[in-house]
């Protein structure tokens, strides 16, 4: 029996993370010290990150070309791994305080990351499906990881039910496309689009995929789960969902639609246009009405998905690069925001109401300044990462002639200022008394917040290299 030739380089990041997860799970059975496990996961992820970074510039493919290592995959691998590192940092004290089983927590986190890496690297719909499921199933459990909390259970339940429901659509979509083109490989599909095929079948499949991906990235109207799940899940998991899961979702979404269905752009751009507008608007308008900061951030993440959809609607290399860059910028600021949410909580008192932030800005200047940076960046104020991201997204839209979309986008930015700035109002302009656990007692968490803040400023002030990275990564798809 002969194995098909495997380019080990192509699967190296995946392999490392997956193995790390297994090790974690195993060690977790015997080691009780949460911090050791956390450090293990962190170091492992760090090593993987470095190893992956070394691979930059390499190309490889495995499993009959269904899994590739191109710049695009590397971009997302690195992004996901970095996010993973930060989330682990954030989880260290949180896991301990909430009593979540550290072994399975980190293991599931790593499995989820490995699923994401598959999604980023896969060039076959089936592999994307597998990656997505590996990721999703892990995250379902993570969402319910705080087993004693009813809210956590409910979040897991809702996420699971709707996720499984969406899986049905994803599969149906794959099936229809398979039926129409006879292939599941993205490049093959792209090649066959011009040929004689059943367009109805194909387009129905495209629509189904749109539904499924829309669910994963929380696009309206497939977003309903997001606020509930984000609110109910443990905060560190919410951060993971808001950043990493969304990035992975967009990784697959972008590759499939811009690379695979690029030839059908005229057919799906209108739909995506509507989705983008709806997503931005609903996300922002509903975020205005929230009192719980996690729920507010959930709607905010919906809105940001909308901005990225604008980039996808624009399509082409510009749109693709803009989407990639936006995800990068979004990762830093959003992780940071969740970090601050974590920092405000303490054992038994989550302090998740926005009003709990009253007076925080001057009582805890570091947290205040960091949160201000994140909120302003999310609003899109220069010279922060969020602004750079929006600029490139709207540039893409304008270049491709989607002026109305750009205008609606900026109007949405204005609306978003309403709720982001409200956090600043509460933090800096109203008196309050919620005490914050000292930074020295949560060194990892604060490290992650400062790191996110630095990245947010850095990307904003010097966007050029990151932008170039995003552009080249997008173009490197085979």
């Amino acid at each position: 029996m002969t194995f098909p030739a495997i380019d080990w380089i192509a699967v190296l990041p995946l392999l490392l993370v997956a193995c790390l997860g297994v090790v974690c799970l195993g060690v977790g059975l015997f080691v009780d010290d949460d911090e050791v496990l956390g450090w293990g996961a962190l170091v492992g992820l760090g090593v993987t990150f470095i190893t992956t970074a070394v691979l930059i510039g390499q190309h490889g493919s495995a499993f009959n070309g269904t899994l590739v290592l191109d710049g695009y995959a590397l971009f997302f691998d690195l992004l996901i791994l970095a996010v993973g590192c930060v989330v682990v940092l954030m989880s260290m004290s949180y896991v301990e305080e909430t009593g979540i089983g550290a072994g399975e927590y980190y293991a599931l986190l790593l499995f989820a990351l490995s699923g994401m890496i598959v999604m980023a690297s896969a060039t076959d719909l089936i592999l994307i499906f597998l990656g997505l499921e590996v990721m999703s199933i892990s995250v379902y459990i993570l969402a319910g990881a705080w087993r004693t909390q009813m809210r956590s259970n409910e979040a897991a339940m809702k996420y699971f039910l709707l996720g499984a429901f969406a899986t049905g659509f994803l599969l149906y979509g794959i099936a229809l496309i398979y039926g129409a083109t006879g292939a599941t490989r993205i490049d093959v599909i792209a090649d066959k689009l011009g040929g004689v095929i059943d367009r109805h079948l194909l387009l129905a499949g495209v629509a189904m995929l749109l539904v499924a991906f829309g669910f994963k990235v929380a696009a309206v109207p497939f977003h309903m789960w997001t606020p509930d799940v984000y609110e109910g899940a443990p905060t560190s998991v919410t951060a993971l969902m808001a950043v990493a899961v969304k990035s992975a979702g967009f990784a697959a979404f972008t590759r499939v639609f811009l690379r695979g269905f690029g030839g059908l752009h005229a057919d799906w751009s209108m739909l995506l246009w509507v989705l983008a507008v709806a997503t931005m608007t609903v996300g922002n308008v509903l975020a205005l009405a929230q009192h719980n900061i996690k729920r507010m951030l959930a709607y905010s993440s919906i809105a940001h998905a909308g901005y990225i959809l604008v980039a996808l609607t624009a399509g082409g290399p510009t749109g693709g690069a803009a989407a990639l860059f936006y995800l990068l910028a979004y990762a830093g600021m959003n992780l940071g925001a969740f970090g601050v949410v974590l920092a405000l909580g303490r054992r038994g008192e989550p302090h998740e109401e926005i009003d709990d932030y009253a007076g925080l800005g001057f009582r805890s200047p570091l947290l205040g300044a960091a949160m201000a940076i994140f909120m302003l960046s999310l609003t899109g104020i220069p010279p922060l990462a969020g602004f750079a991201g929006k600029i490139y997204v709207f540039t893409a839209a304008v270049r491709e002639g989607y002026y109305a979309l750009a205008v609606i986008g900026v109007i949405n930015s204005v609306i978003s200022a309403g709720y982001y700035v409200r956090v600043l109002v509460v933090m800096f302009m109203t008196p309050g008394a919620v005490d914050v656990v000292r930074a020295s007692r949560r060194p990892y968490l604060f490290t992650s917040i400062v790191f996110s803040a630095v990245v947010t400023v850095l990307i904003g002030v010097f966007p050029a290299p990151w932008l170039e990275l995003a552009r080249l990564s997008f173009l490197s798809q085979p």
Partner: protein
Amino acid sequence: MTGNVLLSLIVWTPLVGALLVLLVPRDQPDGARRAAFAFSSLTFVLSLALWAGFRADTADFQWIEQGAWVPSFGIQYILGVDGVSLFLVLLTTFLTPLVILFSFGDITTRVKEYFFFLLMLETGMLGAFLALDLFLFYVFWELMLIPMYFIIGVWGGARRIYASLKFLIYTLAASLLMLVAILYLVSVHAHGAAVTFDVRELYGTVLSPTEQLWLFTAFALAFAVKVPMFPLHTWLPDAHVEAPTGGSVILAGVLLKMGTYGFLRFAMPLFPDATRAATPLILALAVVGILYGAAVAMVQPDLKKLVAYSSVSHLGFVMLGLFAVNTIGVEGAIYQMLNHGLSTGALFLLVGVIYGRRHTRAIADFGGLWKPLPRYAAVFLVVMLSSIGLPGLNGFIGEFLILLGSFAANRAATVFASGGLVLGAVYMLWMFQRVIFGPLRHEENAHLQDLTGREIAVLAPVVAMIVVMGVYPRPFLRAMEPSVKALVARIEAHDGPATRIAARVNGQR
């Protein structure tokens, strides 16, 4: 031309100061105050060096610094100064130390944060005036919003949150539309040319009339909100009333000029055809603003609101001058920007003085202040007279040139606008009468302290400038003339109004 760093020094010195101020220990507010004052003064000195080295014989940008920032998008770091921006920069660097000095006594809580934001604001303003790259300009433009937002929101009055939020959202909304327009403009310019945000290159962009109109509208909205032009002005009274004195001074003194400066530097020369097409509308709004602002100012019970509405009126004059699109009118408009910065800034300082003593700004709470506060009253008198454009003081030069310029461009508008001269006198004098003249109506005003040494140190330079600029405007006008001429020439086509005027002036009748 690259190699000098003076402009960068001017722009970034305040920000460096801001960061250093943050490092001052919290229990040493005096240290923060002195550091802030030192850095802003240093900036002023640097800007004086800029003036000293400024060549008044060319319309070109000077002291240019240019470097790549985001090369793939054609975004560069370009700073440069010309006769239009020179004095606005000086105005900014002149007012900021004074405001900081004034705030020594005015701000007692969260001192270092206040100065941090104030200095950050200065960097934003200076950058916006000096940026020649549209993107860079936009970055500075929005960078100004945040510190101002905090200054109003944290150190402001009772309704500060409402006011600051309104300020932020309003200006953000308008400027984001401009952002889309900028992106569009750049993308059009990129057809057949390297993509760039360099405004000097973008001036030459060929646009269809429809495109011009749309883009002009977007730019004009952003700037009109900032000016603020009627009917986009309602954020201003709220912001002014709630802001602390220093915030009001900077807001009125410099920030409002951003709008008019934006029109002159960007909206008008980038879209000359649209400018001409929109001129009647803008002139109409300017005139309405002048009269409306004056009328509404008259019935305000709150001193700061009165001054705020007076700004609406004054800035209407500036718009009138700008859209006269001739050398006289535009020079008058620029001059009036400086005048307004000084006189309205000083008015807010003066209001701040008595607010600090009495914790009220209601006109009805004062009256007969001349007796207890003779020095204060005298300064107030001069400033008020400057504000109503008394000849011999700075305000007159600006208003006269504006009217002279706009008279050639649009007589009807000028005639209506000149009504503002009367209405302006009405509300100012009435206010002065109720605050300074008359009997002492309130016992608690009888023993108010007259201007302190520090307050005199803040107000004296302003009053001196008010007089100097009224008596000897030559150095200012001479330095701005070449740049203004070049801008006017850029805005007008061959059949433009200014050309017709030139023909008439040259005696071809």
